[in-house]
């Protein structure tokens, strides 16, 4: 999106809008009744016991909260630089978020006792299962893409059947089907390989389209130029077409990897000891479910943030290379 050089007047400078915003927020707060909240406790000296302060206390607490929120928004709108605005809002949201978790009364001792195991066992398994799967999926995708572009009806049929099937079923179901289905035909399989197979097949189906688009975007002149020199199909593919489509394929593949990292949580259902599995099981004995779920959630979030950072770096690098 390209910003206009002339900006509209900031809404939060209009008294009418501020009044409107304030009343809406007040209404919302009034409906959800914040008299039991921290604000209610803070106001206790003035209003008395929040339980008994009735509709009057209820209203005052809502009013105070709304005023605080609107003032905060106003203050943010006065921050001059875009960057600082972003940082302040992020920090505020993060604090809100964490205090929300904090209010669950979590046992941090328990978290601390388990977090190392969650990282070494959980994150490690999540990462390696995803990494192996994305590599296999890429190979499947190359073959699938070539088959889908071929004039051979047999190859096209197989490839389109495959993509249709694996894109049409929920991943969770594929995980079950492979883990429970393969033993039915006499092939007993461990949980980890079953999970890897399910993820590879499913993502291979999605990535087939990515690879196909990447290959198709190469100018027909490259095929003709290579053929005119006497190159055979596999040589053209390996040396001329794929090297040129890789820069187009890598960014969306990175996105797929991030998505797979989260989808790999589905293989926890067959007992692969990855992050999600640990999150569900570690807290069971002592009823510390919330602790483990929140820790795992944070770990997933951090992992994807790091990967997104790497991903944007890679994307920028290839963009530069393209414009050379």
């Amino acid at each position: 999106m390209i910003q206009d050089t002339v900006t509209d007047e900031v809404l939060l400078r209009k008294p009418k809008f501020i009044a409107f915003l304030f009343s809406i927020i007040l209404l919302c707060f009034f409906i959800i009744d914040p008299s039991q909240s921290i604000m209610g406790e803070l106001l206790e000296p003035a209003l008395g016991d929040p339980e008994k302060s009735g509709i009057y206390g209820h209203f005052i607490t809502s009013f105070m909260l709304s005023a605080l929120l609107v003032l905060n928004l106003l203050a943010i709108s006065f921050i001059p630089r875009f960057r600082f605005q972003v940082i302040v809002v992020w920090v505020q949201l993060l604090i809100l978020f964490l205090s929300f978790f904090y209010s669950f009364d979590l046992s941090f001792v328990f978290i601390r006792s388990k977090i190392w195991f969650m990282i070494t066992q959980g994150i490690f398994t999540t990462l390696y299962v995803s990494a192996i799967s994305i590599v296999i999926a890429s190979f499947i995708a190359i073959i699938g893409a070539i088959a889908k572009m071929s004039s051979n009806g047999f190859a096209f049929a197989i490839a389109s059947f495959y993509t249709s099937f694996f894109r049409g079923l929920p991943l969770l179901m594929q995980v079950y089907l492979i883990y429970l289905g393969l033993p039915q035909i006499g092939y007993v399989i461990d949980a980890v390989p079953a999970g890897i197979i399910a993820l590879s097949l499913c993502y291979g189906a999605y990535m087939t389209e990515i690879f196909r688009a990447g290959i198709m975007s190469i100018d027909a002149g490259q095929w003709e130029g290579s053929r005119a020199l006497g190159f055979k199909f596999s040589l053209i593919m390996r040396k001329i077409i794929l090297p040129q489509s890789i820069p187009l394929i890598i960014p969306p593949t990175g996105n797929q990897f991030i998505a797979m990292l989260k989808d790999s949580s589905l293989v926890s259902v067959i007992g692969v000891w990855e992050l999600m599995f640990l999150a569900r099981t570690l807290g069971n004995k002592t009823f510390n479910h919330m602790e483990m779920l929140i820790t795992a959630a944070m770990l997933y979030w951090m992992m994807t943030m790091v990967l997104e950072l790497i991903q944007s770096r890679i994307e920028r690098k290839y963009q530069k290379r393209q414009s050379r």
Partner: protein
Amino acid sequence: MSEDNQNTIGPIISIKDMNKFYDDFQALTDINLDVNVGERIVICGPSGSGKSTLIRCLNRLEAHQSGSVNVNGVELHQHMKNIDKVRSEVGMVFQHFNLFPHMTILENCTAGPMWVNNMPPSDAHEMAMSYLNRVKIPEQANKYPAQLSGGQQQRVAIARSLCMNPKVMLFDEPTSALDPEMVSEVLDTMTDLAESGMTMICVTHEMGFAKRVADRVIFMDEGKIIESNDPIAFFENPQSDRTKKFLSQVLVH
């Protein structure tokens, strides 16, 4: 029967009663053409007359539906086994160069000899440099195509084809995508090549080049060969009205 002997006796390219369709549309009709070794042929004609289609049938970038196309003693058809060999002996230069953008100029030139003819890298390198010398851009060897001007890229494309030691060179409007000031450097390279005795078939609208270099000029319209003559007769004394009209249009400016 050795192929090499054959082409010194008969024509190196022989097209007989060839017809070519794109679905229902007939792009070429009853084409008959023999090209002898060392002969230089210029094909001209209005846009859409089938010039590109004709020369693309010669290395089977396009398939013909009836008649026969014989290149260097090999009959081209759908189920032939050695199309790659035929193609490696027929050089082709395109309007838009079709260089490989991810490879350096030198790699563009060595790829064919190394990958198709299994030439050792050092020999391929040496040969590529000698052809780059011949098209007068050895100093660009380690650059990428996008860093060169259009005229330089087209000369690289010519060198790349020559590295395969082709027996015939096909040119499809090699100068039409170039800025005017670059046309002559490419035409000079082609003239050079013609003087060295290369068999050439050029689709081009450069009538000056045709007059200077061609042994035979062929005029096409609506998928047919209308006229085929030596350049003097062709330009001084065109036979058909369509040729006259075409010549009046291209020679006016």
